């Protein structure tokens, strides 16, 4: 059971507390391990969903974007694994497993594994969910701006977050430009906000558990 942190209700407050946490404590093995496991879980889940694009006929431009993302996500999922300072603290792994389960459950990952990429309600949910993964899960803004980014772990983290900016273009273009008359603009907005909240809630839970364990 994760201890509650009274007073830290919003994601903004949790981010501010995490900034202070990193500033005061640096980035130790436990935290590197937590970050690596969260990002691996997200990238792996996204890669699993994207894998089906290789078996499915799509317009060229959409195929190109999603195909590129599939391979990039597979690469990114491994980067931190090779640079993190792995901890011997078993509680970190229990906690990571709990957060990964929350990701699969709240994000409805299993539902997206088999559904085809067609302009449907579910496809928009997937696009909004994966947009939020890349837009909302950002660690660099939480770290002191004076830290040296050439150390292996931070170099990989920076690489991943910069790559997210490039890969998110697939989600942006598909969310904005795919014609799906059955999904009204207001419904698209609702889907985007709903999926964003799922990811923010996941990130909040991650930060809460990291801070509670410190």
């Amino acid at each position, binding site marked *: 059971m994760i201890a509650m942190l009274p007073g830290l209700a919003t994601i903004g407050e949790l981010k501010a507390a995490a900034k202070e946490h990193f500033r005061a404590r640096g980035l130790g093995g436990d935290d590197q391990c937590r970050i690596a496991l969260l990002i691996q879980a997200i990238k792996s889940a996204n890669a699993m969903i994207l894998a089906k694009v290789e078996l499915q006929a799509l317009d060229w431009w959409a195929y190109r974007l999603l195909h590129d993302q599939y391979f990039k996500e597979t690469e990114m999922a491994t980067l931190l694994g090779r640079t993190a300072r792995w901890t011997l603290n078993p509680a970190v792994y229990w906690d990571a497993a709990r957060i990964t389960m929350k990701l699969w459950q709240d994000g409805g990952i299993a539902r997206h594994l088999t559904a085809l990429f067609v302009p449907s309600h579910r496809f928009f949910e997937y696009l909004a969910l994966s947009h939020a993964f890349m837009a909302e899960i*950002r660690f660099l803004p*939480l770290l002191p*701006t004076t830290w040296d980014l050439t150390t292996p772990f931070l170099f990989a983290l920076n690489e991943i977050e*910069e790559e997210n900016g490039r890969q*998110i*273009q697939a989600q*942006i273009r598909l969310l904005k430009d795919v014609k799906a008359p059955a999904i009204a603009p207001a419904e698209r907005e609702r889907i*985007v906000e709903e999926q964003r909240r799922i990811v923010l809630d996941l990130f909040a839970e991650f930060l809460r558990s990291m801070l509670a364990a410190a």
Partner: protein
Amino acid sequence: MPVLSYKGLDAYYEVAGDERAPLVAFVNGLTMRAGHWGPYAEALAKAGLRALTFDLFGQGMSAKPILQLDFRENEDLLIALLDRLGVEKAYICGISYGGVIVLELPIRFPERIKGIIPMSTFSELDAILERVSFNFYDDMVRGSFDMLLNWLTVYNFSPRKLAAVAADFASAKRSSAGANDLYAIQNLMESLKNFKGFTSELAAIECPALIMNGEYDALTPRHFHELLRHKIKRSRLMLIQHAYHAFSLEFPEITQRLLIDFVRQVESGRWKGDQTVWVAEDRADARPLAFPCPGDHTRCIPFPKAPGAKTPKFYSPDDSE
């Protein structure tokens, strides 16, 4: 933290100064945040004025829509903020991207605007600005937010300033990247995707206007401001010496003094919006603050202006005269 909920989106804002004093609202440039205007809010409050700063949708602590964002929604947001504060008429100051909002507001809402201070901005694109804007966008989406900041930095500041902050440059960029979200800035840029020049509409602006342009602004050079001066009847063009695109950040004391002086002149009925061209003194404590531009301000080569000669008119395809 004051927040206005507008059409389901939260907008972050701050107000400083006496609530009975004339209010100046500050509109951010593309990657700015309300906090950048902090020293202006402080200076205005000290001068007996009131300042409103806020983050546009897509910036800083305001909501960041993911799907479409209409450029005019940020103009509507500012009017909603004035409504929230119970301010009937206000002065509007903004730079670059925010300067376009400043120029459109008195056309759309003339009854709400007392005066405008557009800085480093434009009412139409020329072939270079169109290409540069595309390059900014393209480098950001295909490269990184960092690449956008690299470009903006070299346009924004003087070599002296860049040399002085060289040691902190990487840290400052990370701070900006941390406070911004690529997708949200992209959305703000895409809100201008169908931008059409509105130079011919500037003649509808009746309120006083202090137009400011840096001496060496290569991003939005002189001719964009010259168009504004020609079209806005009660305007003056103020050139800021030694300045580049983001002079409000590099020379805040000079800019603040010019701004405060403009508001005081308008409030006391002394403002002469005679479409003349002025050069600001390069010391914030200088008296007077500015002197009439002695040469041809449209040229980089300092040709003297012949006595009685009219300023050469800049060609604009949008120009109906």
